[in-house]
């Protein structure tokens, strides 16, 4: 199994490297051999060479550098996602994959793989988050974003218990389209939500006909998740 950690040096705003680390540990726990390639702008990159692609959150200035490079991979990335390839985009990395995104104040075409658009917010949004969908309950984290997404036909989460959602008061969070997973929940979202990590591992194994999945959540990860969830819910 090969993971591409895209723009590892530009898109690691809030400890995002944690997502790659825990994904790797969870896959290894299932007995899968994992290699991680760190890839950045101007590097040779073929999405089809990888089994999982990850891009994290970044500053708005770095978004310009990253997008210019991403654009050179547009067709291959579109094919990768259409063919059911796994890609996780956290924080503002998700903005690139829709129709329109905001390049430092200017609206520009995105990669146009998905149908949503990113829209600049009047004020930077920072909040603690708890979101859920039918299979993943109470995904916890933190949002910190200058844009939101609109016209989102494929939300990943449809219940927002805490936080503002992907767009203020939208009550939806993130995007799931085939195996493209996007969320504005920033930082080490997988480290913080071991059930989400397990879900991705299980989905990946199923779609790649790798058998033998059993849920393996470490005790400390479970306790850390519960403790963090209770602390942002203000439960003692």
């Amino acid at each position: 199994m090969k993971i591409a950690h895209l723009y590892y040096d530009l898109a690691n705003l809030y400890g995002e490297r944690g997502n790659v680390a825990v994904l790797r540990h969870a896959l290894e726990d299932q007995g899968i051999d994992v290699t991680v390639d760190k890839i950045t702008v101007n590097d040779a990159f073929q999405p089809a060479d990888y089994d999982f692609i990850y891009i994290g959150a970044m500053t708005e200035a770095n978004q310009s550098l990253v997008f210019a490079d991403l654009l050179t991979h547009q067709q291959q990335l579109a094919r990768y996602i259409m063919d059911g390839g796994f890609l996780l985009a956290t924080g503002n990395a998700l903005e690139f994959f829709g129709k329109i995104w905001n390049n430092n104040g200017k609206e520009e075409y995105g990669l146009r793989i998905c149908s949503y658009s990113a829209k600049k917010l009047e004020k930077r949004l920072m909040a603690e988050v708890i979101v859920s969908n039918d299979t993943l309950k109470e995904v916890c984290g933190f949002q910190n974003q200058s844009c939101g997404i609109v016209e989102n036909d494929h939300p990943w989460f449809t219940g927002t218990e805490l936080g503002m959602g992907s767009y203020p008061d939208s009550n939806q969070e993130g995007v799931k389209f085939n195996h493209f997973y996007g969320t504005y929940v920033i930082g080490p979202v997988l480290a913080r939500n071991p059930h989400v990590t397990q879900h991705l591992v299980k989905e990946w194994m199923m779609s790649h006909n790798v058998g033998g999945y059993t849920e393996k959540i470490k005790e400390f990860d479970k306790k850390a998740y519960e403790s963090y969830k209770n602390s942002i819910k203000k439960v003692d």
Partner: protein
Amino acid sequence: MKMLVILVAKLIIRVGKLVHRGSTLPGDVALRMDPDILSKIEIPKLSVAVTGTTGKTSTTQTIADVFASCGYKVAHNLSGANLIGGVATLLLDSVTLSGKCKKDVLVLEVDERYAKLVFQYFQPTYFVVTNLSRDQLARHGHYDVVYDDIARCITDSMHLVLNADDPFVCKLALNHKGPVTYFGIKETAQDTAEPEIDTLDLCYCPKCHEKLHFDRYHYGNLGIWNCPNHDYDRPECAYEVTGIDMENQRFTINGSESVAIQHDILYNIYNNLVVYAISDLCRLDRKTVLSSLKSFNFTVKRFDTFTCDGRDGYILTSKNETPISYNQSLKYVSLDSSLKTIVVGFKRVSGRYDLMDLSWLWDVNFECLDADTIDHAVCVGPFANELAARLVHAGIREEQIVIEPVPGNTLQTVKDKTKGTIYATVYFDMAKELTKLVESEKRV
């Protein structure tokens, strides 16, 4: 009106001193009475302002102390009072009722985000930026927001004093038409070829967008760097550390000047280097400066030692949400290859706000700890489980983890369950708690 505002501020300052509090209140009240009061009073002709992610407080305090040793009357804001109210209090305290200045020099620690407010009223003669990196993201948004706020308040009248080893800081001089002086460190024994974490807060040339090349990293974002096209290279230093003798706690500037540091911790070199640079730029008496640097004992303690049941202990105050600070502490711990127990923890994520984002734990390089030299890792406080999970992913074995939810039990737990030298890399609130526990132990 002006006199009345100054009088009110001075009265509140006096009352505050009696009850030992209120370093920002007098200024806040004065600003509410007259938002323009600071532009109506006299500011010392010579002023030094210091900002940056780390090192502000120690550096500012030492600069103030050095000026005082050289016979200057110094106005200086004590640690923590670096927001607008604190600065206003200081300035109002340093003038007469008619607004005339009683001091020779103003030495100011300024919060990164508040410089733009403070510099509305006056521009410092010298503006020092110690370093800039990811810090309190839940408050700032991110480091570019902080950078923009600092860049916006710089005027060409200011003499910038910048850390040449930090490419992000050097960017502040790109459009500056006033004087700039750089300081830096040539090399340290702890230098590495790779950064502690993959990300630097500025790792691409701001001009040609090529990835910057680093010959070596001192720590964090700091090191010897250049742009592959030479569009943006590490500038030449007027004050450069050319030799470090940690054992004797001294370092050499420009090949000849020998300067003392407190403890064998790297960041203290930057602090004293800045102090030396400022004192040289202000033509203070060299001999007095050097002997003061030798004799100072910081009242701001980020490093403390103790013994407990015959075991050596260190308290390394490590700022939550500020990986550059935390990583320095961990690097110090990792240099000791003998058996040790580490203590990590905090009561609150932030002393400033209630948002509880722990993302920064993954920008802290716990991976530098070698599990084989660790007896136990004691995770303390309400976030003990979150810390434990992070440590386990960094390679500490589950059986090495001890969870202690009650901060007050830390020392007892360490004594009962662990062995080896004790390294507590903890936030301010836990450092205080531990110091208290160690003190009460001594009294028994």
